[in-house]
């Protein structure tokens, strides 16, 4: 045993409590999986639900005792706690949406829930990482679990395509990230985020610009893939379309929020001394992402693809907040991501419910007449869509408001104007959904629409309520 070894103290274990709970419950599910007969796999889902609830409590407990853990590998601060709670909540909602979906597709298994838990555990590690190595491993845990979840319906051709594309492109992007990490380590001699910032800001130690520039660029590519920012967004529509709807909801919520958290943390702390170099790239990245997302969404006829492009566009809005590069910008991004998680899970919950076995009804036209046959569901969906557009008094409006406010304060006038124009474009395709829901005659797609399961209903109501409540009382999380 090395002489300078200090065993981790008790409080450090509390700081990783959510990760411990998530991983332990996931492993427990895998142990119980072979012991559970096929009709009773749902019990494992309840266990996963309990795990997520426990992890929420754990994250809250960890949030009370902020500070570094495990020789500074993790930094549990307010930012980390916020995103931990967010990704765990996303996992919980997705589990709720998954229950009826998996039963309907006759694909309930412990592995699904275990992978979901592992993925969330990876995200909580990511958001609290203070070291690039931990960050990378967390990102990989999250990604590998999501690759498999995307291809969970193995017998579907589209799911296979989704998983293969997601895996190959994702691995490629991670390689970029890893190469960037290696270069930054070579340039600064450390993988600690604050250590990197220290070296970069010290004029005597400042390493070659070309090296750090390449490193930042490569890492940005890796992150941009994970948040599906253009031009690294091509995977998103295919993956969201092919993946099971609850998984698509998850991909657009948890991993994306966590990747944004990591992007914010790395670029606002470690690469803060290089702001002048990456700001212009971030500017164009956000603009391109918004434009690509919104204009491509106009052409979609498949709801899942449409939501995928909408998710790309929303990533663009959050990137505006990153470009603002201020305390306000960070807060705006945090608020927006929270709202987006709810909107997105709510929207996909509707898709998951509506699509029926084998995901047959996922075209926009299939929604025709929903407003007449299922007025409550349609109303909830409409609220979520209005929030996606950014109509007051929903939280979507406030989210955009905060972002563009931060952008204006950071003198990003042009970006703000272009972003607002983009929101106007976005209104068209969201409104089209509402129009079809309420104004069109019902077709075949509404025959044999089963009742909505309690758990989906809970997720949908939660999402819609959150969107409204946060819109009225933003102070709750700001």
């Amino acid at each position, binding site marked *: 045993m090395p002489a300078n*070894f200090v065993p981790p103290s008790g409080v450090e274990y509390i700081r*990783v409590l959510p990760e411990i709970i998530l991983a332990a419950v996931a492993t427990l599910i895998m142990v119980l999986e072979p012991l559970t007969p096929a009709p009773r796999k749902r019990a494992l889902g309840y266990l996963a639900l309990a795990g997520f609830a426990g992890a929420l409590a754990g994250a809250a407990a960890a949030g009370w005792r902020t500070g570094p853990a495990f020789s500074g590998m993790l930094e549990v601060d307010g930012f980390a706690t916020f995103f931990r709670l967010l990704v765990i909540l996303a996992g919980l909602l997705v589990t709720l949406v998954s229950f009826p979906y998996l039963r309907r597709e006759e694909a309930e298994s412990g592995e699904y829930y275990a992978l979901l838990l592992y993925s969330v555990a990876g995200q909580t590690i990511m958001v609290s990482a203070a*070291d690039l190595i931990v960050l990378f491993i967390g990102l990989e845990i999250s990604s590998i679990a999501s690759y498999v979840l995307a291809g969970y319906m193995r017998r579907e051709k589209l799911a296979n395509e989704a998983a293969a594309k997601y895996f190959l492109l994702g691995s490629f992007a991670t390689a970029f990230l890893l190469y960037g990490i290696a270069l930054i380590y070579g340039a600064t001699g450390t993988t600690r985020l604050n250590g990197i910032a220290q070296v970069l800001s010290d004029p005597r130690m400042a390493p070659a610009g070309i090296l750090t520039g390449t490193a930042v660029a490569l890492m940005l590519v890796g992150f941009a893939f994970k948040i599906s920012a253009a031009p690294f967004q091509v995977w998103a529509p295919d993956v969201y379309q092919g993946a099971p709807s609850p998984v698509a909801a998850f991909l657009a919520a948890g991993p994306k929020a966590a990747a944004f958290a990591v992007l914010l943390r790395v670029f606002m702390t470690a690469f803060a001394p290089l702001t002048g170099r990456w700001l212009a790239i971030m500017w164009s990245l956000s603009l391109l992402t918004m434009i690509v997302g919104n204009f491509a969404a106009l052409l979609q006829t498949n709801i899942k693809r449409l939501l995928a492009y909408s998710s790309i566009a929303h990533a663009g809005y959050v990137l505006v907040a990153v470009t603002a590069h201020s305390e306000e910008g960070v807060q705006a991004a945090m608020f927006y991501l929270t709202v987006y998680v709810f909107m997105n899970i709510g929207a996909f919950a509707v898709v998951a419910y509506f699509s029926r076995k084998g995901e047959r009804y996922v075209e926009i036209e299939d929604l025709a007449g929903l407003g007449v046959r299922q007025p409550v569901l349609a109303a909830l969906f409409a609220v979520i869509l209005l929030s996606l557009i950014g109509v007051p008094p929903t939280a979507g409006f406030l989210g955009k408001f905060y972002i563009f406010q931060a952008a204006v304060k950071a003198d990003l006038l042009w970006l703000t104007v272009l972003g607002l124009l983009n929101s106007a474009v976005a209104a068209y395709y969201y409104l089209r959904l509402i129009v079809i829901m309420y104004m069109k005659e019902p077709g075949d797609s509404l025959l044999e629409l089963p009742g909505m399961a309690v758990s989906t209903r809970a997720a949908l109501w939660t999402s819609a309520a959150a969107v409204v409540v946060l819109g009225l009382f933003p102070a709750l999380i700001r």
Partner: protein
Amino acid sequence: MNPMWIDTLFFYFFALLVLGGGVATITCKSAVHSAISLIVSMVGVAGLFLLQHAEFLFAVQIVLYIGGVMVLFLFVIMLVNLDESMQMRQFNRQWLLAVAAVIAAGVQAVWLLSKPADLPAAVPQVPGGPGNVQRVADVLFSQYLLPFEIASVLLLAAVIGSVVMAKKRL
């Protein structure tokens, strides 16, 4: 005999293995030849580790990458019908772009190395003391305890993922 001179010679030998293997990996038509070239490249990397007196990494590189990863690679490749894949279009048509990227990276590396002041000082070697394995273990189980532990979560998730992809009933 000048040990410095021998070290330099070996360095260029292994570097040649790494680069030559790498180039052959992406240019070979047959997947098996590509895999073998990759192995050659990895042997070169292992040799470079050895030159840096990182014996542990040397052995681990060979055991894991050549003995583990690449053998499994070869397994999969052998079970695939190679004649068919030989006729398929290969994804390496953009070699002009690739050459440009390689030259750019090379220029960058040369430019950096020509200004050693910009690079962080090399970690000084500690003569004597505990062996390579002990030193790796010391760091791994104290400072890097958390990454080490969560790496096992990563592997577990990957194992479960492969079970999901492979098991008969879903």
